[in-house]
């Protein structure tokens, strides 16, 4: 028996059986395939099934019938997998195998197609080429490190995906940071990598579980130099003449009249209660940094980089991650982020070199992860050994290439710049 399934539009996932004989599709209540859409004619098309052959006939419908994007002038024999478009509805034809009904509800059969247009994918390729040229011209060497590693970055809110092989646990990398720093310890001096990174539970307008990251390190760079290189890169990739720099403290003081460095958690919570926005329902487990993050994403970030790229720098020491603390002001870390059109595009550090300090931070982060009921991450790593051996003074930056492509190509969602988002992977 042949089958038709609605793959897109009203009643998506609806399956129709086509036994031997003639079947009418239309708005007419008596049509076997009854579609209640005004753009569908009363008797729109017919399906004649005889043995293994199925012929579709357009019954002189007002709005026509398309098979694989070509109009059916009179009739046409269907072959397995053909897509039929009627008004806003997309149907798929199956000659014999019955598509799994349960699957059909969740797995859209037209999902073999790219969500990014061919034009966008070509433009993305051009951007990638341009980006590589920027790095080669600046004297960087391109490197490739394992995406599957026994080490992983220890972060409270980054959820790496474990992979069990034989008796050993590996991790899909949330960024190539650890391995790239090991290369610096091994003697490389200016390196960049364009690779995929994986972060579990991240899906949305600006997130896909697997995404493309551009990460680079250069030994000897000061924070100023690293921010300048990032700003220049954003200017040349996105066509701006200048970029701004703004300290984390100044941003909070100007926009929210809050000093993020001196305010206590209690004062911060009170300030938040006076602001008009939807705070999380459950406040348990939220600390000062979570509240600062909340204010940053809600009130500050949307205003950053509207005129030109903006680098926010000197993040609070409590949000240092893998950045070193500022030698002249230990309340802040030499961490910076790039924002364009309110979108977070890159994160950079003047890198922490002290192995024992990193180990302390890992232990603290793991304790927080335990509070959150999240699995512990290995606090020991090849990176720690590399740092003990000697990591040269350096700066490093990670930039989300998909978001860069969104901005460069004026797309509003990550799905428009990558071919197969995770639900089509």
């Amino acid at each position, binding site marked *: 028996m042949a089958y038709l399934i609605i793959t897109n539009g009203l009643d998506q996932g609806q399956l129709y059986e086509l036994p031997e004989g003639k079947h009418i599709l239309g708005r007419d209540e008596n049509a076997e395939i009854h579609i*209640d859409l005004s753009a569908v004619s009363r008797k729109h098309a017919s399906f004649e099934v005889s043995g293994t052959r199925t012929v579709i006939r357009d019954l002189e419908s007002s709005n026509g019938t398309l098979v694989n994007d070509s109009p059916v002038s009179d009739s046409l024999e269907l072959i397995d997998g053909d897509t039929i478009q009627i008004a806003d509805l997309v149907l798929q034809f199956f000659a014999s195998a019955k598509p799994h009904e349960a699957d059909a509800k969740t797995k859209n059969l037209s999902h073999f197609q790219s969500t990014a247009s061919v034009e966008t994918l070509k433009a993305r390729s051009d951007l990638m080429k341009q980006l590589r040229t920027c790095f080669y011209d600046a004297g960087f060497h391109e490197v490739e490190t394992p995406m599957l590693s026994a080490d992983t970055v220890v*972060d*409270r*809110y*980054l959820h790496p995906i474990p992979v069990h092989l034989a008796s050993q646990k590996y991790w899909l990398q949330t960024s190539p940071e650890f391995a790239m720093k090991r290369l610096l310890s091994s003697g490389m001096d200016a390196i960049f990598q364009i690779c995929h990174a994986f972060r579990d*539970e*991240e*899906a*949305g*307008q*600006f*997130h896909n579980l697997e995404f493309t990251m551009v990460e680079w390190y250069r030994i000897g760079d000061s924070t100023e130099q690293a921010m300048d290189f990032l700003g220049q890169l954003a200017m040349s990739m996105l066509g701006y003449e200048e970029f701004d720099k703004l300290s984390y403290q100044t941003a909070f003081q100007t926009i929210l009249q809050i000093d993020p460095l001196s305010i206590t958690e209690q004062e911060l919570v009170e300030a938040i209660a006076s602001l008009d926005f*939807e*705070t*999380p*329902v*459950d406040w348990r487990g*939220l600390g000062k*940094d*979570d509240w600062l*993050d*909340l204010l*940053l*994403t809600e009130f500050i*970030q949307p205003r950053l980089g509207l005129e030109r790229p903006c680098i926010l720098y000197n993040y609070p020491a409590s*949000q240092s*991650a893998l950045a070193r603390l500022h030698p002249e002001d230990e309340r802040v870390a030499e961490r910076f*982020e790039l924002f364009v059109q309110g979108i*977070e595009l890159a*994160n950079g550090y003047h890198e922490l070199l002290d192995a024992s300090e990193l180990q302390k931070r890992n232990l603290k982060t793991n304790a927080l992860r335990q509070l*959150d*009921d*999240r699995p512990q991450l290995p606090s020991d790593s090849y990176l720690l050994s590399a740092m003990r051996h000697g990591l040269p003074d350096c700066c490093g930056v990670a930039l989300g290439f998909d978001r860069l492509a969104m901005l460069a190509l004026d797309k509003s969602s990550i799905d428009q710049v990558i071919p197969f988002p995770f639900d089509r992977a």
Partner: protein
Amino acid sequence: MASYKTNDFRKGLRVEIDNEPYLMIEMNFVKPGKGNALYKCKLRNLIRGTVLDRTYKGGDSLEAADVEEIDCQFLYRQTDTFYFMNNTDYDQYELSEEQVGDFWKYLKEGMKCHAVLWNGNPITITPPNHVELTVEFCEPGAKGDTATNVTKPVKVETGAEIICPAFIEMGNVIKVDTRTGDYVERVNIK
């Protein structure tokens, strides 16, 4: 009862909040690179239709609501109570005038409707998008009044008043859009 973790949050999810069923109609994922994930949700109350904005952080969860959509038939009305029958298992449901809302205007005995059940009890009833109703009473239109922009109220068999073009007469069958309450067309009786 089953629950959904933030990781399962998506449009179309049916959840229970403060002992009421909600449909997740919008879900936006927001996450600063190093910060906690936020799930900004819009949820529609399945009983009252009101919309709620709620933000959840990564790791939070919501109870799943036992909500089911069924086809049913309107049986009859007895004063303020409306009786329906499930087309699949022939279970009967009683709905109050308040639960039926404005849709009483379109309910004819035997009419196929759509119902939403929560924990096995109906919470909303939706009639078909278009229903055909017989005009029981109306003032006669002035002679020659064939223009459609001249309207008048008519009383249909269910007792409801519908605004129709002036040419509609008693005994006519009219098609009404139940979503808007508007007259659509006069139906020719075969």
